[in-house]
């Protein structure tokens, strides 16, 4: 019996880990979205975290906890000089500038001989346990949950709704926006370090633009209006391909193309019918039920 359970765990351990890692990454995108900023530098921060952790593991005898701490701090510090000039930009321009940052980081690592260029590090010892990923995720969720109803949380909401009005209420909008970029960078860095020590490797190709798009899609599908939405989105979109593989193999379909097709379809359906994401589903259903009730009363 226990052997069967162990088998099951071994089969699905990696899926469970990625649900948590992708949840952390979705929260890192949510951090900047929560004050109305679309920053796509997350893959760059994740790369800084992953490489910092791998380098420290290989070249220093630091315990894993300190490695993780360093991998959280390095991208956070990098976010400050990036944030100062970049937060003067808005909307599309901010998105493009932050994509630029991510690409610069990736290309630097491609060309850096010290980190084996495009190959990156392989054979990073597996020191990440699944519980660590979930502890980090729980910590991040707690932080964002508490933030919501705090004075700072009110300020962030005000900035998202109407930045000039928020500023004339005495809210230092740039300081708040910068703090959230730093928080997002910290979460991405931590996720990068945990992933590197789970998958045995860091390579520049892991931190491509497509990765940021994935994170953003998690947040949008789950719902970026609530702090737990992005985590739901990440879980849903990480588990979906696993389910589809099962279904697909029975019907005799190739898993690869089917997955991309379904991901696109899910994104489209959510944007069209659930613009506030999966988190808004219960409320949406309640509203529909209430809309139907008075009609029924009139009929009777």
């Amino acid at each position, binding site marked *: 019996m226990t052997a069967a359970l162990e088998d099951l765990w071994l089969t699905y351990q990696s899926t469970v880990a990625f649900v948590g890692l992708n949840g952390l990454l979705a929260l890192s995108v949510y951090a900047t979205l929560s004050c109305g900023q679309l920053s796509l530098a997350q893959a760059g921060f994740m790369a800084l975290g992953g490489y910092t952790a791998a380098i420290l593991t290989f070249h220093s005898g630091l315990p894993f906890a300190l490695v993780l701490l360093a991998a959280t701090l390095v991208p956070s510090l990098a976010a400050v000089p990036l944030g100062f000039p970049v937060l003067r930009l808005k909307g599309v321009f901010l998105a493009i500038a932050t994509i630029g940052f991510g690409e610069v980081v990736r290309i630097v690592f491609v060309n850096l001989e010290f980190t084996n260029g495009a190959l990156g590090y392989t054979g990073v010892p597996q020191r990440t346990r699944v519980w660590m990923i979930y502890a980090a995720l729980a910590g991040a969720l707690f932080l964002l949950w508490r933030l919501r109803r*705090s004075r700072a949380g*009110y*300020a962030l909401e005000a900035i998202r709704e109407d930045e*000039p*009005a928020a500023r004339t*209420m005495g809210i230092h909008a740039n300081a708040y926006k910068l703090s959230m970029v730093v928080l997002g960078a910290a979460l991405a860095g931590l996720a990068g370090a945990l992933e590197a020590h789970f998958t045995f490797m860091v390579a520049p190709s892991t931190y491509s633009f497509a990765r940021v798009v994935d994170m953003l899609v998690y947040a949008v599908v789950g719902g970026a209006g609530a702090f737990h939405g992005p985590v739901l989105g990440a879980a849903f979109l990480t588990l979906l391909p696993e389910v589809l593989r099962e279904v697909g193999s029975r019907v005799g379909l190739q898993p690869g193309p089917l997955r991309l097709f379904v991901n696109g379809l899910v994104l489209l359906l959510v944007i069209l019918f659930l613009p506030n994401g999966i988190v808004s589903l219960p409320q949406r259903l309640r509203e529909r039920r209430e809309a139907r009730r008075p009609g029924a009363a009139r009929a009777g």
Partner: protein
Amino acid sequence: MLLELDEVERAFGGVRAVDEASLQVARGEVHGLIGPNGAGKTTLLNLVSGLLRPSGGAVRLDGRRIDRLPPHRIAALGVTRTYQNIRLFGGLSAADNVVVGAHLRRDAPLWRWMLMLPSAGAEQRQARARALDLLRRVGLEARADEKAQNLSYGEQRRVEIARALASEPRVLLLDEPTAGMNPAEVASIAALIRGVAAAGQSVLLVEHNVKLVMAACDRITVLNFGRVIADGPPAQVARDPAVIAAYLGGER
């Protein structure tokens, strides 16, 4: 003088929206700012609140220059405002809008809130209680938990006033606070404005409702094409030939 504008100027391209305008607002005074459409009244409020920078002249609060400061610093020095085209945080409840307005008055270190200390919870409840008090003052306590975007036009204007008062400003800038209100609502706003002034706070009131301006203001400045054409007590300004010409289109 509490608030002082000294030959303030702001040009948009070739248009001088505010042209060497000077005015003084004393402590506890309700100061009216009137003028025909496009006279530069809202631009002037934007210059005082820091959303725009003057291209010339100086704005002083208590003798200190504030015209180069960002809006949040000016708010911290005691100047808050409402907007002609209402700018509430639509997704937040009326009460939460007022809580945001109290941002500068809240002593709530984040770490205390994060550690879930009882003192942080007490501060939060206090902030909400203060917000409800202010909503009562503008007659909206029954609508406290309604989303701001679902409120009527007149109600939204009153929430904006409550939000601006929440920071306990020394100078309150009101940009057409009674636009779209019925006479009963206008009367209650007039009483509210007088109450604010009686508490020692100054009000700079941009308004089209002549009755309200005449009744509520201690002093009136009239703008036309960005220039000050008259300044004085309401009765005197109402008789001023330049003012009558500006409003009725006198020939020259």
